[in-house]
């Protein structure tokens, strides 16, 4: 989804009103870090930052008491994170923040969120996942808006790029599943499977059009595909693909106008959740046949929606993209628990 926003941001130089071009220069009420707080466990909201000219921020939410610390990277390092923060992953005491337009991955110590290093000169990095206990992280790079993307293999300890693997167009979502790395080429209909020992492509799975989400459940990797929207060509329906080994089974949505996104696993592990225009829907992974969504379990739309494996469901509202967004927290039974103010354009969440 975000590649379309990204593309628009570049074109906005030609066409935009300045209404939504803004970003942070000074903080009127600087968040004060709690000296007792550690970032070893909690919720990290990755805020993309104001559209076009802003800087991303990280909001930390204490899972126990819902205490919120805004802009923890800026506070700890006295500098902004960079333009269009995309995603975060963590390994042991290291946090890794992917910043798209800034072309970098920032490394922070999760004890105090101070920067411990940076990999720069990356080509529009987007998603990140840690490969189990290998000490490596895999970062998807769009590279361009027209050609193939790639995956950067990062050694977390040395903060070096070990290798780059060319994949398909617009690699966005990336997942660790069955000791392999899976990368969704979101402008195509393929998912690439990478062997983490040799860091080479083992196979390429054909799924539905525009895969945008990957969730591992047991031996199955579920791939949510948005389908092609009408404005991008011949419209195709969304689909849910299931990859088991080399086998792929695909379930299409019943209507060609259904373009799902935000696939996540319910914390109880029993159902998949995804979003359509009318809200969040639930789906049993063991079901078969075409997908007829029915009534949404949460009847509203989010900029990002995901589940904390240890607790609640989180949906973000980016509002107008030039003011602070909110995170709405839902109980496992889909009732609204509370809402918390976060940074500008909360686009993804890392649970630790």
């Amino acid at each position: 989804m975000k590649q379309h926003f990204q593309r628009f941001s570049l074109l906005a130089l030609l066409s935009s009103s300045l209404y939504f071009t803004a970003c942070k220069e000074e903080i009127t009420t600087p968040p004060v870090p709690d000296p007792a707080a550690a970032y070893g466990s909690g919720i990290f909201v990755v805020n993309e930052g104001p559209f076009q000219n802003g800087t991303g921020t990280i909001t930390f939410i204490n899972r126990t008491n819902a205490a919120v610390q805004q802009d923890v990277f800026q506070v700890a390092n006295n500098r902004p994170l960079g333009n269009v923060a995309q995603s975060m992953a963590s390994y042991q005491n290291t946090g890794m923040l992917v910043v798209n337009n800034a072309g970098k991955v920032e490394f922070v110590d999760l004890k105090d969120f101070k920067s411990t290093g940076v990999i720069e000169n990356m080509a529009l990095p987007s998603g990140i996942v840690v490969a189990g206990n290998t000490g490596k992280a895999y970062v998807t790079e769009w590279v361009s808006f027209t050609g193939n993307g790639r995956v950067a293999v990062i050694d977390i300890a040395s903060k070096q790029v070990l290798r780059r693997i060319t994949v398909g167009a617009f690699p966005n979502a990336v997942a660790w599943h069955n000791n392999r790395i899976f990368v969704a080429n979101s402008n195509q209909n393929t998912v690439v499977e990478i062997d983490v020992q040799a860091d080479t492509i083992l196979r390429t799975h054909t799924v539905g059009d525009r895969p945008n989400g990957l969730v591992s459940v047991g031996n199955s990797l579920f791939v949510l595909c948005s389908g092609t929207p009408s404005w991008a060509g011949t419209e195709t329906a969304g689909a849910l693909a299931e990859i088991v080994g080399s086998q792929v089974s695909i379930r299409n949505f019943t209507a060609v106008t259904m373009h799902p996104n935000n696939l996540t696993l319910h914390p109880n592990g029993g159902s998949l959740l995804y979003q359509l225009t009318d809200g969040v829907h639930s789906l049993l992974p063991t079901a078969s046949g075409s997908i007829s969504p029915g009534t949404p379990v949460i009847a509203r739309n989010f900029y990002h929606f995901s589940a904390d494996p240890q607790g609640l469901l989180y949906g973000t509202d980016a509002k107008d993209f030039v003011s602070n967004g909110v995170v709405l927290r839902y109980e496992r039974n889909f009732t609204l628990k509370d809402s918390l103010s976060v940074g500008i354009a909360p686009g993804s969440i890392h649970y630790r």
Partner: protein
Amino acid sequence: MKKWSGFFVLGLFVGPAVWAQTADTSLRLPWVEVEEIRHPAERQPGLQRQSPDSLLLRALPAASVADWLQWQGSASLRTYGPNGLATLSLRGSSAQQNTVLWEGLPLLNPMNGTPDLNLYPMWLLGGVSLQTGSTASDFGSGAIGGALHFRQGIPQRHEAAVFTEIRSFGDYAGGVSASVRARKGWYQIRGLYRTAQNNYPYTNIARFGNPTEQMAHAAHAQGGLLQEAGWQLHPRWRLRAAWWMQAHRRELPASMTEQQSTAVQADTAHRFALSLTGQAGRWQLAFRQGYLRELNHFGDERLGFDERHRFTALLQEISAVTTSGRHEFSQLLQQAYYTASSPNFNSRERQYRLAWVPGWRYNGTKTTARLQMRVETVDGRLVPITPSLQAEHQINNKWQWRLAGSRTYRLPGFNDLYWQPGGNANLQPENGWQAESGVGWKTTLRSWSFVAGGGAFWSDLSDWIIWLPNSSLGYWSPQNLRRVRSMGWEQQAAVLWALGKVKLRLHGDYAYVSTTHREVATGEESLLGKQLIYIPRHQARARFFVEYPSFFAGWQYSYNGLRFTSSDNRFFLPNQHLHQIMLGGSKRLGPHVLLLTGTIHNALNLQYQQIAWRPMPGRHYQITLQFNFNAP
């Protein structure tokens, strides 16, 4: 060129007409160059108009309109950097809520409606003025905050000028102009070329340790040519034709929070204007025709973009004015046909606008009043009927009172309507009301002259168009979601002193602008009452010029108060104080004059941004040499 000449010829046979040539009666500061007013719509009582000081035009010939406006009261400029996108906010308006007129013809790009003021070089334009307040009933869509008027004067003699300019950071410019005046006509031509590297150092506050870095990928090149010819066909009939072509290529640098940029933007424009003015019986008639053709080429090698966006505009206008005693009645008929193509549109999009504007004007000895109404259709659909009322009253020989009120509107641009994905063909025009009132005062005491003025304004605009993302669809889409109210006041004061050969001018401006959300979308309630982004509540300008016959010195000061960069007003850019100093001298060589000017820009070396994370240059220098042939 052949097909354009055909267009000109066609225009010669279409419609009669004329422009009135009465002096503008609005409050003016006395040293401002009085421009020729040739269109009834520009003789608006109750509204204020400002023009550049003639000294500035001599000292900074290669300056753009954006360069001038950053020192001008009422104007709030937002620029991405030298020669980057520069847009204007007047009284809290957005960039699209102001209009730009060349020879009375709207220049706005129908796709985005955003004029880039760095693309308009003062040298080419000859005459520039800024009018604050709504002129929507005259100029239609977008004339909400104010209007910029570009208009060349009529040369009075054979003359010519050439200049060259060297500025820091690899900035070079040169220009020529020539005018020929004959008994029954005239011709003038102006040309300009400018190139700059813009590789200035800046403090990167987005990087650890705040290192000093050098701006990269920020070069630009610009060239333009403007020609105009006029013929006195008959003692009562005059024909004018103008052609303005311009090309501009610029690299778009990365912001401080971005890694790099390889984006390049190239704009080319051809603009034609033709007018026939005259008198038939008791009617003053005017026919005007314009044709605009512009190409915007955006490319980014790194990201694989190579897109061309084009538009054309065919504009026609007929006006008729007749006078009966102190009363003046006018009829104005305007039509405009726009086409635009873009890889982001499904097809070549078209729009036809037809407007009828009847008006009445009263020219009393002390009071001038004007009542007008604009009725317009867009592709056959009626848009808000736009009435306006303007009045001025000369209380005595020192005091003047003015009043203006009107309805305002702005049509959605082609991008708003047709952009794929996201365009919303069901958008309504932004529309609202506006009012202002103020007083002016002037007096003379021996060799001193004093001028002061001030006034308050109010505007309320509904159905404000805002692009918001739809996360479920994966793209942005515009909606009529907000209502915005602007109110504030503006003050000006000036002192002039002339003693023998010494002339001294001191001028100050202050403006308070409160522009807040009054209605927002569901879930955005926290934005209610918050100031809109990039609109300073407080801004002030000052300038001081001293002239001795052959020498001059000038100082300009610009203050912009805190500007919020997030709509919840949590983040902001700090106050900004800018200074500019210039020194110059001239030497008369027979009928010719040689001018040499030195300018220090950002004299106190302020590290600042006008758009967040877009650094502006620190202190830098400029030397200009100009030679005027057959100068007055």
